């Protein structure tokens, strides 16, 4: 059994759904019997700011839910990459939505993956599900949670907006595939 202890920081503009992706990840881990915490940034009610969440997953009770140096960063916008990129732990993982982030990460000591999440999401359904592409990539790459369980959680999360389920599941799967491939290919 892999050591699943990890911390993921998911960041984007408010409304891009990274808090939801984080929640799905946390739920999936919880359903697998792991301990989790989900800690959002809650800034002053400034409009149009960035929103981010730190998800911690551990076999024992999560100690600090507040993580200065996460093991993984999923980012949907440039400000977040600039702010949090340098903080990722050496040897960590950075997943960048290249549909929206025009720049590259300069972290040579991390694994950096670029995914055109919006384009991919649009292709399989709707660009609005880019957050789930990102989640899929992470799940595929890290194997930290089971993909099937995660899909179930996605379905549950959208249970009162059933019509959005297919596009979101499809986006997750598209990301998952990218992630699994990336895992197989490198390192």
């Amino acid at each position: 059994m892999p050591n699943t202890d990890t911390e993921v920081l998911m960041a984007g503009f408010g409304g891009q759904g990274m808090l939801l992706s984080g929640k799905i990840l946390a739920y999936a881990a919880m359903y697998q019997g792991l301990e989790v915490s989900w800690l959002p940034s809650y800034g002053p009610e400034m409009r149009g700011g960035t929103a981010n969440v730190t998800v911690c997953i551990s076999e024992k009770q999560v100690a600090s839910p507040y993580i200065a140096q996460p093991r993984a960063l999923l980012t949907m916008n440039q400000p977040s990459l600039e702010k949090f990129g340098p903080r990722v732990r050496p040897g960590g993982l950075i997943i960048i939505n290249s549909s929206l982030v025009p720049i590259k990460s300069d972290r040579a000591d991390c694994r950096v993956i670029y995914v055109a999440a919006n384009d991919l999401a649009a292709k399989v359904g709707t660009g609005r599900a880019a957050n789930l592409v990102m989640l899929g990539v992470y799940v595929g790459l890290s194997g930290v949670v089971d993909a099937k369980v995660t899909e179930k959680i996605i379905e549950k999360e959208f249970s009162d907006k059933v019509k959005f389920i297919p596009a979101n599941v499809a986006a997750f799967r598209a990301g998952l595939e990218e992630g699994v491939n990336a895992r197989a290919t490198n390192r």
Partner: protein
Amino acid sequence: MAKVLMKGNEAIGEAAIRAGCVHFFGYPITPQSEVPEYLAKRLPEVGGKFVQAESEVAASNMIYGAAGVGVRVLTTSSSPGISLMSEALSYIAACELPVVVVNVMRSGPGLGGILPAQSDYLHATKGTAHGDFKMIVLAPASVQEAVNLVILAFELAEKYLNPVMVIGDGMIGQMMEPVEFPVEGVGKPLDPGNWALTGCKGRGKRIINSLYLDPEICYRHNLKLTAKYEEIRKAEQRFDTYNTDGPYDLLVTAFGMTSRIARTAIDELAQEGQRVALFRPITLNPFPYEALRAAASKAKRVLDLEMNMGQMLQDVRMALGPDAAIDFFGTAGGVVPSPDQCREKMLESISKTGSRPKAKGARRNP
């Protein structure tokens, strides 16, 4: 019941309901507004009453009224709002009414900011308001513990007929963690005992009052309250320790979420062979002075970590005396100390003791 992933604020609201509290009076304030929002949805579903008060002053007097007629009642707020409840809390304590108040702390002083802080420790534990009274103060370190302590808060409030405050920082209100709730309705309906104002049918009239014009009677009332606090002090001290089984050089004191950040640092240091233990008061009042003293007696030094400028530090000093070797590290203003910062401060403290690390990897880092 299965675990659910829930925001601290919502879990606090749900915990109250599970404790049998279906009356809420409160006023919005970040970072606790999800409590009233959650209860505004939920309470009508369970036949309860939700009232958005016009202010915290009003809210704190509404809970006085509701508790006085013998129902279980909750209010929640955050730092500046809690300050506005000072006078009413003194009345509630004086009248010996059971209420639960949750303070999801933000940074101060003044308007401060809305980010996490622990800087209402002294207001909660020492000087809530005028007059001689004390609240019981409980400090959870996880969403699950917040749920458990809210339920405990109602029990203690009713056992001692005294206000109980559950005090957490903004993080605990805003984060989601898995929680398990006890079965619905752990709380039996509140027993209106021989004090609640339910209408005097079939009995003499009752009075809920804190005015005692005769000084001797007022004195006696104070002595009675003081005796109760003494009873609480003896019976209700709660704390948690970590890594205290083996030997340790440094004892860290921390409450609430700060203790979890400290734990991460302690675990990391353990891998480096450093022996650090943690003492976490759960009841900030009554503060577990003797237990802390016992735990500290095994350490060469104590490091107090808080998200404030040194408030619990006063109790740590009180427990250990003016000559004890106590270091302090605190952040404020919404700055959450990172595990690395804590680690560094611990190392600094250890270096002052002259201890050397034991064999690396002696303890596993979870």
